[in-house]
């Protein structure tokens, strides 16, 4: 059984806030759920499936109770920032299997103005916690090794931020709207080498939500039809320390699974939402998904190749996590939302990809250089 063409994205909503000192996290979840329902033209009583991750206060039981949901299917898989890309795949499976017909997926939180839930630890804790691994230095280690093996440069990484900033200038809600240059990135303070401050994503309060449904229900609504045609997910970790390789991610497995199910190739993709916690995250994912060969990501992203209307692969046209929004340090939700906007033809006119009928949304979650997940979703306009 395949999920190809079985699930439709009927509602999307990205909270406009990037700073929410006057709201609670649960409230933000409710606000994005309401936004996605209104976008779809549905009501809360229609929801019979609910998906949320570690950012939902108290987990799926507490969150469903707070929202007043009565569902027959739920999933609280937590794989960090890509949880929502995993949820979208799992929602499609549930819809294909008849376990639910209208699924809600929410993400929200307040890393700027509230406490972040602690990162879960596993059996490795005694053997790793003392070394103060953070997202910055773990991704820094990936970039350092990539540069060592393939000659990737800081200038090439900077082009990824430059492209994101070109898109963010048109997004009225983006946290950083100023267009930056390669030199600006290289001159920004070193955080954890070789990553500069401008190689890092923003930290924002906010959230987003999706409504996923059946073809029949989607056709009864008034939105342009966007459906899932392929999904893949995968996990990667040091696995006992054998053959450690920080230059690729679990995307090398999630990507091909998604492309195979969809029956398309990277060359067919008109728009790509690529997780951008750091510039190196994007570069590695582009290679892992097959948009270019391993080691050639630096050349691929240079000279504006990711800028809509300029390069061959328009990416993150909302400004992405690097410039617009990275709610709760989890960027998977906004990746899906911008891909749907592109497929609906509702992206900002300055960044809308002409005749965008096939898009990819992909993300990793956890820590790329340690234990992480990857999820790839391929979406098409019907």
């Amino acid at each position, binding site marked *: 059984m395949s999920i190809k063409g079985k699930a439709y994205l009927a509602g999307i909503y990205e909270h406009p806030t990037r700073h929410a000192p006057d709201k609670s996290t649960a409230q933000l979840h409710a606000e994005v759920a309401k936004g996605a329902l209104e976008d779809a033209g549905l009501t809360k009583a229609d929801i019979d499936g609910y998906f949320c991750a570690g950012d939902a206060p108290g987990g799926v039981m507490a969150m469903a109770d707070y929202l007043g949901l009565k569902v027959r299917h739920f999933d609280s898989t937590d794989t960090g920032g890509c949880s929502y890309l995993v949820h979208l795949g799992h929602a499609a499976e549930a819809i294909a299997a008849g376990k639910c017909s209208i699924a809600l997926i929410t993400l929200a939180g307040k890393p700027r103005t509230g406490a972040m839930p602690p990162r879960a630890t596993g*059996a*490795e*804790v*005694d*053997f*790793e*916690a*003392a*070394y*103060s*691994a*953070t997202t*910055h*230095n*773990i991704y*820094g*280690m*990936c*970039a*350092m*090794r990539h540069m*060592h093996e393939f000659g990737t440069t800081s200038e090439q990484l900077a082009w990824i931020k430059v492209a994101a900033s070109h898109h963010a200038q048109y997004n009225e809600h983006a946290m950083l709207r100023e267009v930056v240059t390669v030199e600006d990135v290289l001159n920004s*303070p*070193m*955080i*954890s*080498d*070789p*990553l500069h401050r401008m190689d890092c994503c923003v930290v924002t309060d906010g959230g987003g939500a999706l409504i996923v449904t059946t073809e029949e229900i989607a056709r009864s609504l008034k939105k342009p039809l966007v459906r899932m045609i392929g999904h893949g997910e995968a996990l990667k970790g*040091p*696995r*006992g*320390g*054998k053959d*450690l390789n*920080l230059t690729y991610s679990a995307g090398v497995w999630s990507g091909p699974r998604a492309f195979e199910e969809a029956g398309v190739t990277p060359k067919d993709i008109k728009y790509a939402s690529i997780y951008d916690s750091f510039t190196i995250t994007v570069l590695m994912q582009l290679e892992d998904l097959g948009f270019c060969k391993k080691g050639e990501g630096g050349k691929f992203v240079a000279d504006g190749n990711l800028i809509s209307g300029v390069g061959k692969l328009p990416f993150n046209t909302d400004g992405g996590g690097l410039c617009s929004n990275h709610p709760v340090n989890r960027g998977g939700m906004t990746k899906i939302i911008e891909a749907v906007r592109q497929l609906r033809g509702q992206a900002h006119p300055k960044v809308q990809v002409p005749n965008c009928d096939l898009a990819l949304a992909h993300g990793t979650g956890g820590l790329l*250089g*340690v234990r992480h997940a990857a999820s790839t979703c391929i979406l098409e306009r019907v």
Partner: protein
Amino acid sequence: MADKPKYPTPQGNPETKPFWDAAAQGKFLIKRCTACGEPHYFPRTLCPFCFSDKTVWEESSGEAEIYTFSRMRKSATGPYAIGYVTLKEGPSLLTNFVDCDMDSLKIGQKVKVVFKPTDGAPLPFFTPV
């Protein structure tokens, strides 16, 4: 030299107790599977490769080389160097580089294990040879 960093005390558990007991004696242990022959780190009872329970403790030479590293500049407790090292016996592991000039670290550099005290068992770190 700044104040000695305060490291978290390993909590240990029945599966890893021999590792921490050996660390207290200055020995750095890895595990090896006698069924498939593969060494691994951190230690498991069942081999993460072939899932055999025929795993045994083995003292590592503590000799390794740097696979990758990053110097963390943005830290409330001061800069530090984190990295992965690959042991002579094979497994790679996460660590910090201590007792060294951070700016001279290089991929491929030879390093060796050195233990640092905590309120319980000491923790392994690595330092350039």
